[in-house]
Each structure stands twice: as structure tokens, then as C-alpha cells.
């Protein structure tokens, strides 16, 4: 794991597992209950290393903006599973008292101010927070997570272009997960996305998002550049093959919750998942790496996961026990006055 200490590595793996288990819980909410989670939702399964690796490079006070696929980013930044899950099912215990829901989980106390479910909606906002830091003379930086689909929206193009022009301290993290709303085939859009950033004069690179270490490394270098005031950085993070459980705006858990032993022995996993576990799942790849390098044994990992599962269960319980907000509250908070 290069420069990461054992402690850090364990902590990062723990975060990744927290995300995995919380997302599975979201799917359970949608499929095991009636009328609990009726709309679309988007889980982060497989991409955990990106969120966790990038957030590892951040400091308190930095800003983070995300999309419809936000749950993982919020937890990666330190969000607790309880209020995240409560928000996702619209309860007062959620970070936004259930007002925003799955599309809009945010956590202002962690610098995640407003989450846009509009593709590319968060990209100008993140550049704006960077402008704010620059104007106020702080060393804060701002991160925007978004998918490759967002790179086709003018909003991201304009934000990148202005960020370059104004040398804004903003990190653009484009998670290329092979999905863009089902609207186009992979690779259809011509040359690499990273070229679009380079053409605007932005420092940019392609990162292997299936490996936590690669993300930590790239994000670490990017953040250093940003804090030095050298202008925006664009990371095209290739998150590997798409998790086979995605199904439009919902999801299916093939073979149930992820079993950690699958990571070490893909043959034991459901047929549909095997290739993905071998080549793409950032959690599985990390587990195997840690095992092979002797940093964290299978048994220790499974023990860690047991804790995480207990924590997630408690979080789900808290969410389910949290009441719905009072109906008339709907008229509040349109304006500050």
C-alpha cells in the first residue's frame, strides 16, 4: 500500500465497508419493505475506493459536491450511516430532515452543502466554492464528484473552462463507471474525456479507480497542487466494469449481501459477480492486496466487517425509528426571512 500506514489502511478499508454495507441496506429498504423507498436511487457499490481515496486527501473545512450517486461520497467524507439512511427514507433523523432524500443527501457540517441530482449540476457549484475560498484567502479546496455522463453537459464544460481561467482550487473527479444513464455505449463519445480537460489547460490524468492506493496517490498529488494555488486538477477515475447489480435507477443484490469470502475466492460468488470481483470491485481488490501483502489477514478483515455490519444495522434501526417530518413543515424554509 505504498505510503499508507497500517492504521490508515485499516481505517480506509473500514470506510469502504461502511459504504458497501450502507448501500446494501438502501437496497433492502427498497426491496424488502413496501412503500419505504419507492423512487429511483443510485448506489456506489464497487466505486468505494474513489470516494474514500479522494476524501483521505482532504482536510476539515474543504468542500465536497456530489450527484444523484452521493451516498458513498457522504460516508467517505465522514458522514454517519444513520442520518444518511434516515435521509434516504425521508425521515427527520436525516441530515436534511428528510427533505432532500436519496437524490440530495448532504451534510453541511462536513462541507457537503448542497447535492444536485441534475447531471453536472454540482460542477459549477464546486467551482464557486473554490472561488469563495480563493477570495477569502483560505487554504480550502473544493471537490466535485461526477460521472462520465456529466462531461457531455455544457455545465461541466463551462465550469472547467472558468476554473482554468481563474486558477480556482477545485478538484474535478470524473468517475467513469461505464454508465451514463444507459443513453450511450461505452466509449461512444470519441477520445478520452481527460483530453477535454487538457484542451482547456487543466492539469489532468487518468487514474485506476479499482485500486485505493492509486486513488490516494493521485488525489494526494492533486490536492498538493491545489493548495499551492496552481489551479484546478481533473482526475478521470476509471472505476472498472460496472457492478452487475445496477438496474436502471434501482438495484438487485445477486446472491444477497456481499460475502467477504467472495473477494478471496471468486468461484464461491454468484456467477454474475465473478468477473467483476476479479477485475473491478475496489473492495475485493483491496482485500486481496492486503491479504497477499500480509497487511491484513482474511480473518482480521472479516472481523472488521462484522463490526461494520453491526454499526450499519444500528444505523438502519435508527433510520427506521425516526419519524416522518410533520406535514405542515413543508411550508417552511423557502426563504430565510
Amino acid at each position: 500500500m505504498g505510503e499508507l500506514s497500517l492504521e490508515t489502511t485499516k481505517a480506509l478499508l473500514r470506510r469502504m465497508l461502511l459504504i458497501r454495507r450502507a448501500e446494501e441496506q438502501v437496497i433492502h429498504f427498497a426491496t424488502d419493505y413496501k412503500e419505504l423507498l419507492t423512487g429511483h436511487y443510485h448506489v456506489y457499490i464497487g466505486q468505494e475506493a474513489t470516494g474514500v481515496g479522494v476524501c483521505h486527501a482532504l482536510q476539515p473545512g474543504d468542500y465536497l459536491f456530489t450527484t444523484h450517486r452521493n451516498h458513498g461520497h457522504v460516508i467517505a467524507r465522514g458522514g454517519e450511516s444513520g442520518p444518511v439512511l434516515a435521509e434516504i427514507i425521508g425521515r427527520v433523523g436525516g441530515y436534511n430532515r428528510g427533505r432532500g432524500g436519496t437524490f440530495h443527501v448532504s451534510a453541511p457540517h462536513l462541507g457537503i452543502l448542497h447535492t444536485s441530482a441534475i447531471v453536472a449540476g454540482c460542477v459549477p457549484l464546486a467551482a464557486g466554492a473554490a472561488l469563495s475560498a480563493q477570495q477569502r484567502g483560505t487554504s480550502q479546496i473544493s471537490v466535485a464528484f461526477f460521472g462520465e455522463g456529466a462531461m457531455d453537459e455544457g455545465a461541466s464544460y463551462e465550469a472547467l473552462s472558468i476554473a482554468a481561467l481563474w486558477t480556482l482550487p477545485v478538484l474535478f473527479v470524473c468517475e467513469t463507471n461505464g454508465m451514463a444513464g444507459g443513453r450511450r455505449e461505452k466509449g461512444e463519445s470519441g477520445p478520452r474525456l481527460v483530453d477535454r480537460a487538457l484542451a482547456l489547460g487543466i492539469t489532468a490524468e487518468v487514474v485506476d479507480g479499482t485500486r485505493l492506493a492509486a486513488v490516494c496517490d493521485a488525489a494526494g498529488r492533486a490536492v498538493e497542487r491545489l493548495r499551492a494555488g496552481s489551479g484546478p486538477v481533473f482526475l478521470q477515475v476509471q472505476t472498472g466494469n460496472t457492478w452487475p447489480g445496477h438496474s436502471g435507477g434501482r438495484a438487485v443484490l445477486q446472491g444477497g449481501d456481499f460475502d467477504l469470502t467472495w473477494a478471496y475466492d471468486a468461484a464461491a460468488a454468484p456467477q454474475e459477480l465473478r468477473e467483476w470481483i476479479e477485475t473491478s470491485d475496489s473492495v475485493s481488490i483491496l482485500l486481496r492486496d492486503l491479504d497477499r501483502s500480509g497487511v491484513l489477514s482474511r480473518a482480521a478483515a472479516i472481523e472488521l466487517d462484522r463490526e461494520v455490519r453491526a454499526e450499519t444495522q444500528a444505523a438502519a434501526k435508527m433510520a427506521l425509528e425516526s419519524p416522518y417530518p410533520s406535514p405542515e413543515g413543508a411550508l417552511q424554509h423557502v426563504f430565510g426571512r
Partner: protein
Amino acid sequence: MPEMSYAEALSQALVEIMEQEPRAVLIGGAFGPLGKRFANRIKQPPIAELGYCGIAVGAAMTGLRPIVSLGTASFIYEALPQVLNEASVARYGSAGQLSVPVVFHVRVGIRGAGAMQHSAAPQPIFWNTPGLQIAVPSSPADAKGLMLTAALRSQDPTIFIDHTRLHRLRGPVPDGPTEVPFGVAQVKREGKDVTVLATSVMVPRALEAAEQLAREDGIAAEVVDLRTLVPLDKAAVLASVAKTGRVLIADETQKSCGVGAELAALICEEAFFHLKAPVRRVAIPDVPIPYSKSEEDYVTPGSHHIMAGVREICR
């Protein structure tokens, strides 16, 4: 007449359009089996609404009849520069030399867990923009018939409004190419005591309210389904108001400057002396749409709001 869902009726319309009109092209959306039969006239764009809507407008100026499926209506905000600044003014600015027969097809309204960005009802934006037609069907038959008219006959841009909660509504749909003309309202239920002007998803809600009012209060409500906002069947509106003297407008857009505002203002201007009571609006209160079911239900205009409103003005 065969029964089918609103969604099925719309698909049927699209098939008939593609069969009958070689100039029709579909941009965006999920077309299922259509995808194979008409593959060369179906374009799947990247997530770039401004780009592909503008492309549709340019194509419509040059001999195609594009139908653009944008999905959730808030995504059309991305394309508003091309819709409001180009599509709507092209005929006018050319002093009538150009036609722009394009259909922008969007899904509006409070859908259940759509929250602030997946529940938009932008009809008022379009009604305030001269040069755009607006269809607001409330039934499978009208969805099909109005889509046929927009795609096959119209010479001007049309905003085609589907309410998400109508997609599963079932109803009879006449066989064959039964176009529904624009600008012709339909009296869905006759009544002498009060006029309920309704659009889209509010039509079934109004009919439900009317039944209950008849049963419980002996109030005979006339339910008028406007079907298109532009062109508006002003004659039908004014005739019903002249008959009943009382009006409630049931429309699921935000209240201020919403669809209900225009209808109320029109009536107050042109049918004032027929009015026996204030014109009531049932609309979304002036708030964004919250996610929580409890809050979302609270801001959704329902048949109970219509009943309460009618009872008030029929006192």
C-alpha cells in the same frame, strides 16, 4: 374500444407516427421494441439537453419532424435557451417563412419521492412564451390523440406534458389514427352549480371530487378538461362559467404565475359579470417539492382540496 394504459397509448401513438410519417425522428427516450423497427430514425443522444434540443429545432426547420423525449421535465431547463430563444421565435422572426414542427416530450409533476429536482411542472414558463403550444392530456385516448396531432399535423413547436402519475391510468382508446385537435376542451362531466377547470392529472382528481360532491353535498360540478393550454379553448371556458357562475381551477403547477393564475385572470377579465363567487385556485403552494412522503403529500393538490374549495365557493 380497446382499454389500455396511458403509457401504452403513447407507445401506440409513436408507432403509428413512425409508420405514417417518414420525416418523424425520435431523439432520446427508451423506445423498447420501436428501437429495432425504426433504428435509423431513433437517435440516442449523450446527456446534453441543450445540444440535442437545439439540434431537434434545427432539424425541424429543415424538413424533419423530431419528437424529443427529455424524461423528467426539470431536464428541459438545460435546453431552455434553445426552446425559449430559438424554437418559439423562428416563425415569427421570419415573418412566417419558417415552420418548426418539433415536439418536446416531458414528464412533469409530483411523482412520489421526486424531491426538488424531479417534480418540476414548468407549464407556466412555456405558456408565458409566445410561439409554443402546450398539450396537457389527462387520459390514454387524449395522450395518443394529441401526440398524433402534434407529431403529424402541427407546424409549430409543442411542449407535450405527461404527468408521471398518469402513466398507469387505464382507459379506452379508439382504434386507428384518431387525432385529437388542439384547442378543443372537453366537458368531462356536466353540472350547473360550479365549473371545475382541470388539466392533466387534476382531471381524474376533479372527477373524483365531483362524484363525491354530488353524493355528499348535492352540488353538480361541471368538469372541463382543457386538453391544451395553447391554443386555449377560451369559448368553452367562458361558456361553462356563464352557465355556472362559479369557478375552481385545479392544476398542479406552483400557484404564483401558474396555469391557474392565467385562467383566473382571464375569467375575471372576460366573464366578470357572470361570477357569483371568488375564483378559487387549487395548486401547489409556493414551495419546492419536498422528498419526505409526509411533506410531499401535504403539498400535492388533491381531490380533497377541490372539494373544500368548491364547498367554500358554493356556500
